[in-house]
């Protein structure tokens, strides 16, 4: 009975990351999306006769940063290869890429799904160049009869890093988490715009299924054209189901490339590029080997920013729970700076984090300003936290204090003064108020003395707060009441 067999997905992801260098990989043309078609082109990126490539040093530094962030080995000696296939958007009809000696090999990326962390192996990361863009258009509406392809080579030669995972991903959800983690990583490194909708990050998935527990690999199917995390997850879910249904019925899967159809929510077989299966790789004779010494690697390593995983760990070390550590870690850089400054001058981490991810983030959303435009700095946040801790301002009033600070009315202390939000905590002053409240509620006092009912105390505290318009320090009021009630 087939339904007793458990099938397990085996998923590998290939990511193409478009680097955000100023100029292209092998020529000085600007990397500038949205420029008019064929305006950022030269003999090199147009594949004109006689043109020669010269690699962009910055792009190499970027792939090193990515490789180090992914815990990869850097190949001490690495070369470019020509990958030969004919395609209209590939000007030379070969792509300068890497074959057997990529810049980076063997690393890993930790991902978390439903609180469980898994380590996904990285096969390799290599340097290559992007193709031009094809647009398929109809003429006079007769789409099929008279359609044509328009070619724009502005994107041709833009530096790409291809990151290939090991087939260690076991679910669509993990695939999505992997993609998202990778995205925040390259964004953090500042090596790419990391915008999916603009194609600066492109995902292909290799999906197969096998009987759970075995390690025989099933027929691999490559899925393309997923341009959001959600469609990546949906496409894989769909493909896994499709394959399980087929193999469960004992059908043969064909090794092929399938195209994800976002609207219909299905994958369908793509006609494979004729004769493209044999790429005839050979060493690119127009380029010389890259010999990446330890000093270069060390320099790149030293320049690496704090990466999300490490940062989350640091926050948890400060006492935040996993969830708020993750939320804070994804907050805008400036907000994280404010948090770090505040903690550095003594603010409690938990309180500071709550302000940053709560009220302050809310303020940014409401006003639509950029975190950098905030008038609040870390010292002020620490001061605000301090006011509450010392009981000088009630938690409720503190929100109003923050408003004032964000409105540029001055430091929290000044705002608390000018807006008269400080708590009444002078014992003499409060004692008087308490006395008058007791005087005006003799029956309440009576019922407490006889029954000792706690709710009566609560009622009296409420009365005092009312008289003082909420400025009285509730703890002190409580103490004074009990003293005078002799309870």
């Amino acid at each position: 009975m087939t339904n007793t067999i458990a099938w397990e997905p085996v998923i590998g992801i290939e990511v193409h990351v478009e680097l955000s260098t100023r100029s292209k990989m092998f020529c000085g043309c600007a990397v500038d999306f949205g420029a008019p078609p064929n305006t950022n082109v030269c003999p090199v990126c147009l594949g004109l006769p006689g043109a020669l490539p010269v690699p962009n040093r910055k792009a190499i530094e970027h792939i090193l940063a990515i490789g180090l962030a992914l815990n990869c080995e850097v190949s001490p000696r690495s070369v470019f290869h020509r990958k030969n296939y004919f395609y209209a958007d590939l000007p030379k009809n070969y792509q300068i890429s890497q074959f057997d000696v990529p810049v980076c090999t063997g690393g890993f990326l930790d991902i978390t799904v439903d609180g469980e962390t898994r380590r996904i192996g990285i096969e390799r990361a290599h340097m290559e160049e992007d193709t031009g863009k094809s647009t398929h258009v109809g003429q006079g509406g007769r789409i099929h009869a008279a359609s044509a392809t328009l070619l724009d080579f502005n994107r041709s030669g833009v530096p790409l890093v291809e990151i290939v995972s090991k087939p260690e991903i076991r679910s669509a959800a993990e695939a999505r988490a992997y993609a998202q983690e990778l995205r925040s990583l390259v964004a953090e490194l500042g090596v790419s715009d990391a915008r999916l909708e603009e194609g600066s990050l492109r995902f292909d998935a290799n999906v197969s299924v096998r009987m759970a527990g075995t390690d025989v690999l099933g027929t691999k199917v490559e899925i393309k054209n997923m341009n959001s995390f959600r469609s990546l997850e949906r496409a894989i879910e769909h493909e896994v189901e499709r394959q399980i249904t087929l193999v469960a019925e004992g059908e043969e899967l064909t090794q092929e490339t399938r195209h994800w159809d976002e609207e219909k929510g299905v994958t369908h077989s793509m006609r494979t590029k004729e004769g493209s299966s044999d790429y005839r790789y050979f060493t690119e004779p127009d380029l010389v080997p890259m010999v990446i010494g330890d000093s270069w690697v060390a320099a790149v390593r030293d320049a690496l920013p704090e990466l999300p995983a490490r940062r989350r760990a640091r926050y948890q070390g400060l006492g935040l729970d996993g969830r708020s550590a993750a939320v804070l870690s994804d907050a805008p850089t400036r907000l994280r700076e404010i948090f770090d400054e505040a903690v550095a001058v003594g603010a409690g981490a938990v309180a500071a984090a709550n302000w940053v991810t709560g009220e302050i983030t809310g303020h940014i959303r409401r006003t639509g300003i950029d975190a950098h435009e905030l008038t609040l700095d870390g010292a002020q946040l620490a001061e605000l936290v301090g006011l509450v801790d010392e009981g000088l301002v009630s938690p409720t009033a503190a929100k109003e204090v923050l408003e004032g600070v964000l409105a540029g009315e001055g430091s929290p202390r000044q705002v608390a003064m000018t807006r008269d939000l400080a708590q009444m905590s002078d014992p003499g002053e409060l004692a008087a108020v308490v006395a008058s409240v007791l005087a005006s509620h003799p029956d309440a006092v009576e019922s407490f003395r006889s029954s000792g009912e706690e709710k009566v105390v609560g009622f009296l505290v409420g009365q005092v707060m009312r008289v003082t318009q909420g400025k009285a320090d509730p703890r002190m009021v409580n103490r004074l009441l009990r003293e005078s009630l002799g309870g």
Partner: protein
Amino acid sequence: MTPSTPTIVEAGALLRSGEVTAISLLEGVLEVAHRTEAMLHAYLTIDREGAVEAAVAADTELAAGHDRGPLHGIPVALKDNMCTRGLETTASSQILSGYLPPYDATVVRRLREAGAVIVGKTNLDEFAMGSSTENSAYGATYNPWDIGRVPGGSSGGSAAAVAAGSAITGLGSDTGGSIRQPAALSGIVGLKPTYGTVSRYGLIAFASSLDQIGPLSRTVDDAALTLEAIWGHDPLDATSYPGEYPDLRADMTTGVSGLKVGVVSELAGEGYEPDVEAAVAAMVERLAGEGAAVVEVSLPSFEIALSAYYLIAPAEASANLARFDGIRYGLRVPGDTTESLMARTRAEGFGPEVTRRILLGTYGLSAGYYEAFYGQAQRVRAAIRQDLARVYHDVDVLVSPTSPTVAFEAGARVADPLAMYLSDICTIPSNLAGDPAISVPIGLDGRGLPIGFQVMAPALGERTLFRVAAEVERLAGFTARPEIELVAS
């Protein structure tokens, strides 16, 4: 009536003494072209307008005392596989018919900066694939010494132009002998410099790891002057040598006394014409007579160099020529899909020899054959380097014939590719090694056809190479000129 075309050195003196002007030098070579092109077809394009402009500018500058150096005002012939902005560049292929490059090759830029006058673009075997300049979509070039014979190739157009005097000096490209072999067959000097010393930017690639631009000139002196104008580091070519360059002139009058000269035993015997071997042997004798220590050396890997070359060069070419697809420039043969458009354009646009080599290279790289062919050829290339490194411990230079034969008859080898390939047997090793080599004319055979003498040196050994070449030239005293009766075309 036309004054016999001077050398760069002679012309330079006449220009600076005011006896001639750049314009009159240009008129001189154009007159020769006018009277010889109908027979030789050395040029595909003569840029009269651009040349006159450059010559006028040269005269103005020289008159004003702004001297750009030895090539200032000198008429130069350019092989048509070097891109010239706005001037048709075809590599002798139908697929580039009418192509106007939007940029100048680095060598062209340097020639312009040196004040040279570019006369036009010369004929070649399509994409420099050939040894006779017969594989041209625009018709063959013929040898000024015997118009029934080939000038050699692939730089046969530049060779014929310089030999005939329709240019004072010229540039060619050498992938397996394409400068040296036509120089030998046309009775002039031809040099392939060390790989990486002359920028390939703007040279339409045949085999990127082998291609090198170099001079075709009447004398060793002229070759040195031409090379000095074009070589040097170019940031646009990642394989361009950034270090220090040899001083070509330092030893040109030193003589060969005390030098060790190796005679390559593998480059002799079967297939070598007796007159060629005799002339080469005689020159070796004379070098010994001048105090050179002559030793016979053996480089076994040379025996399979040709085989390696005909796997490596076509493999690289199969990728280099993939860009000619009918989309962005050049010929387009329509098709209802991009695939068919590309395939028909390429079948139509490439000639038989180019098609043959693309197929050969594609095969050698394809799955299942790579290791046995391309991969193994690369090992042979490494072996050749090891062999050369070994012999250069003991000798300063190697010598051999430049070509096993003198100029052969037009059409003789067209039907037999392998026979044609064998014309490069002596020149190919230097390309595989990346070393410099020069061909110097040393005499005529029984039929009055020029014989070339090849000198090879280790990488960046140009100083010694020119030291020996200058002495060979002096000893040969070769002054013969082709006697084409000049008919008006």
